[in-house]
């Protein structure tokens, strides 16, 4: 009797340890697509937990600002998500971000949340050389960078408390 409980306890300990090891391995592995621009960057436009929880609200909010108010230099831009998070295949060609297993689709499929953005919006980073006239491009490059991506080490523009406030505001609407 005694020895069998001892074995059970040992087995339980082993299984528990294994699970712990597995889960830490999963936690330490980043969800960011390997080979994407984001893989080399320290931070997104907001802390990761913030983006995981609230990215949908930020984008939903901004679409009205952009379409109706003409404000295009907003902090959260879908194009910038794609720019940073789209992966590349062996030929270094960008893979659509809504392709199975890619950054957006991977999570959305798992959560069974439909991802309608890319029925209309561009799914791969745009080749900047084909964009508007040179004058406009220079203007865009100087000062008003569309997505306002943070450099590693640069402080986020808003504190977590401010984000929470902003988020509460959006939910009220």
């Amino acid at each position: 009797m005694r020895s069998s409980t001892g074995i059970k306890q040992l087995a339980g300990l082993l299984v528990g340890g294994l699970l712990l090891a597995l889960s830490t391995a999963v936690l330490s592995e980043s969800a960011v697509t390997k080979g994407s621009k984001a893989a080399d960057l320290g931070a997104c436009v907001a802390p990761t937990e913030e983006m995981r929880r609230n990215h949908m609200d930020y984008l939903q909010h901004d679409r009205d600002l952009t379409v109706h108010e003409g404000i295009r230099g907003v902090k959260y831009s879908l194009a910038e998500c794609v720019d940073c998070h789209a992966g590349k295949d062996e030929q270094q060609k960008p893979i659509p971000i809504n392709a199975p297993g890619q950054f957006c689709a991977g999570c959305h499929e798992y959560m069974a949340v439909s991802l309608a953005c890319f029925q209309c919006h561009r799914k791969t980073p745009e080749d900047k050389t084909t964009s508007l006239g040179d004058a406009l491009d220079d203007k865009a490059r100087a000062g008003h960078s569309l997505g306002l991506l943070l450099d590693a080490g640069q402080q986020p523009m808003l504190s977590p408390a401010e984000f929470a406030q902003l988020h509460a505001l959006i939910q009220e609407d």
Partner: protein
Amino acid sequence: MSKSTDQPEMNRREFLGKTIVAATAATVAPGVLLSVAKAGPEQKGVTSDVRWGLLIDTNKCADGCTSCVDACHTENGIDLQEKPEGHSDAMWEQQRVQWIRKVKLQDKLTGEQTNLPLMCQHCEHPPCVDVCPTGASFKRADGIVMVDRHICIGCRYCMMACPYKARSFIHEEVANQLVRAPRGKGCVESCTLCVHRIDDGGTTTACQDACSSEGHNAIVFGDLKDPNSDISKALKEQSSRQIRADLELNTGVRYTNV
């Protein structure tokens, strides 16, 4: 004798209004102030201080030239649309997106021919906005008439209502888009006066640029409310027409020599 009136009880309304304003100011102010403080000069958003429009000199519009149409297609990713499998050429020609059409008019009596590009006329009183059941078809404060495709349900009432046949419907899934020109199955779209350029501080449209570089200079883009803009000066100097002026839509696109 008590005084009867059909006017609303203004005092009560004012009181309610003020309370609501005060309450929202208290709760909303931190967030609002935050976003306002971050807004740069290009983040002010659209204002009704301007009204964008086009003036097209049909005498300068050359027969057979399609540079404005081509430029529009490149600028707005319309040339990325591909013929869906199984569609006949005739169907494709009828259904493909077109924001600008070249139109040729002929005077039946004299045989005189006039060429002109026809696009969304950006009406002050747009019929497409009147009929839209969801509010997707809307007029921006600066006079640009657009479709918010997040809200569009693809009913195509606006296409029926438009006297200029300016709108197109996306019948099939679209594989490739530009960042500045999203496009997807089931929505209506039309000329936006190159709104992405305007919002980024641009002062020309793709069609105007193309027409100028061809040497025709038939298209002038500008602010109709600014008396010193090229378009306002030109409108003041020569007689111009709105197409279907009888509908009293006060179009933002005007034509001379029609």
